[in-house]
């Protein structure tokens, strides 16, 4: 499992990437058992339509490249595409916004339905080493900063305690007719993200934001793995 992740990261570094694309990032997460949205990388309209048919409408179309962090702010995400016509229009619009000569392709992704969003992250702290973050996700993550950090590796009880440590902890319970989140599975995802940071010292940071709660399960719909600046060879 981790061999696949390691080769993805190695290849990205060899190409001089500073970060993994969204799709590469999610493949690393999936290799460690984090539930991720179904998706297919595409380059052409024909490929996009084939992928959408396979995944099933409605779908999301996103620009997917290695320099496209903060996609929604740049209008590089189209959600709620209900059929081939929507998809074609969205693809044309995204191409326009990306401009001529933009590198990278697109991702056709299942539209994960759910009204609750959380975030998982990891960072290599200069003093304490790899640390895992959990918090409120989506557009609120930066505004409310309702997050908690713990060092990796996380023990199961520590991961579960993180879920209870944010102010918005009640969000994970049975609220407003929504079922309670499967906290066991979410805790395993936290442990997994910490494991990724520990296993791969060339990773500087990981964002999994958001994970959308579908039914009882938190599914990663966007992700970004940032690589450490390459160390100059020792003299």
């Amino acid at each position: 499992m981790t061999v696949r992740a390691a080769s993805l990261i190695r290849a990205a570094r060899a190409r001089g990437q500073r970060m993994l694309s969204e799709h590469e990032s999610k493949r690393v997460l999936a290799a460690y058992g984090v539930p991720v949205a179904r998706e297919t990388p595409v380059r052409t309209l024909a490929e996009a339509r084939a992928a959408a048919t396979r995944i099933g409408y409605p779908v999301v179309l996103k620009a997917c490249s290695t320099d496209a962090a903060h996609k929604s702010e740049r209008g590089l995400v189209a959600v709620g595409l209900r059929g081939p016509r929507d998809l074609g229009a969205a693809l044309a619009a995204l191409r326009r916004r990306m401009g001529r000569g933009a590198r990278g392709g697109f991702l056709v992704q299942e539209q994960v339905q759910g009204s609750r969003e959380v975030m998982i992250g990891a960072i290599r702290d200069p003093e304490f080493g790899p640390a895992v973050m959990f918090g409120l996700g989506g557009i609120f993550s930066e505004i409310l900063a309702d997050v908690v950090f713990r060092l990796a590796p996380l023990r199961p009880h520590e991961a579960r305690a993180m879920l209870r440590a944010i102010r918005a902890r009640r969000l994970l319970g049975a609220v407003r007719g929504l079922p309670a989140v499967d906290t066991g599975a979410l805790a395993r995802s936290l442990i997994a993200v910490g494991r990724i940071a520990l296993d791969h010292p060339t990773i500087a940071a990981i964002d999994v934001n958001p994970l959308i709660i579908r039914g009882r399960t938190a599914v990663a719909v966007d992700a970004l793995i940032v690589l450490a600046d390459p160390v100059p060879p020792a003299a």
Partner: protein
Amino acid sequence: MRRAVADLGRFFAPRSVAVIGASAQPGKPGHVVVRNILANGFPGALHLVNPRGGEIEGLPVVPTIEALPDGIDQAIVTLPAAQTPDTVRALGRKGVRAIVLAASGFAEVDRMGAALQAELGRAIREAGARVIGPNTTGHVSVPARFTSSFFPLGRVRGGNISYVAQTGNFCGISLRHILSAEHFGVARSVGLGNKVDVDECDLLEYLGGDAATGAVFLYLERLTDPRRFLRVARAVSRRKPVILLKGGASAAGAAAALAHTGALAGDGRVADGALAQAGVTRVHRYSDLFLVARALAVMPPPRGNRVSFLSPSGAFTVVLTDLCRSLGLEVPPLEDRTRARLQALAPSFIRMRNPVDIFGSVALHGYERAYGDALDAVLGDRRVDAAVVIMMLTAETGVPSYDFLVETARRYPDKPVYVTFMGAHEHDLAARAWLEPRGVPCYMKVEEPFEVLSVLARCRALTA
């Protein structure tokens, strides 16, 4: 290459000590340290070294380290920085394995000082000794009736609180503050100085296994080995409270800042999380090192965050309930039988609940019965983890005897009871001077007992 914790025993329970650089001149560090050792009644052998020989404070002085007898446990060196590396080597040859270095003028000053510190490191390895300092006022070990401090301390009061501080002044000025402003005493106290050898991990590990230490308070600026510190703290915090004041948050690297997570890691959140994980209770004010210690010196942390308080003023019931909420403390509704007991003491027009408005009961029954019965009632309530008593003391309204507070608190040894005041200051001071030595912590500002409870409820939750 880590040496055993047992090595540190020579610092805290030495049988014989030598002062290198002992001085006959009052006020000199080499003189003050001798007076401190004598003032504390150190029962072991005390040897003094000064090239001039003679006598200091009635004790004979030998001219050189070579002239000392063999088998000395610990040496305190009060010589200038430049002489310390050679002195350490000479002590090593003499078989001394624990050395306290007072001098400043090392890496904290300039590049020449840093070079000298590197040479000192080499000398320490050659000598095979453990070293506290340099650049420190030293340490205190009250169970051994011993101190290496060159700051005038006099006799240090014993207790169960131990301190490790990354500031040379701790065994000087801060300890003097404790001795003069507090009633609790200390077990061990160490000023780390430049941490050229012994660091906070070594000391926390030692204090974790130290029967004389009931709680460890640390002031640190930089962790020498963060992962080891957390490992040690995790083990120690299961046995006794570990309270840390840590300054300075580390900034995320540039690459990590490209991610949301990196941006959110500022404000010391990683340190907060890591320390919580290790059961370390973080505080953010220097005075917490004393206010929280005052409580832990005599009472355990509360089992939870549910507080009751007795107030002679309606205003306090309002503002202090607000304060509790902002501090993460609950002021829970009381059990029916508790309320019935409280109501039996009160005039019928006051509805008794939590917080307890005690004024009417005092008017009916006097201080002792009103406060005493109400305190007993709330402490007996299964929904309450701790109680705060607010006393209103003036000559005109009467000043009670305080025995009942001590007796009631003793009946509930698992539930902390703190006292605070509003009234004529001289009575507050007198009440504190009477209550604290008898095991009831008192706070001069009405917010303080709640702030301390909030810290200690966190402490309990982290290590539960």
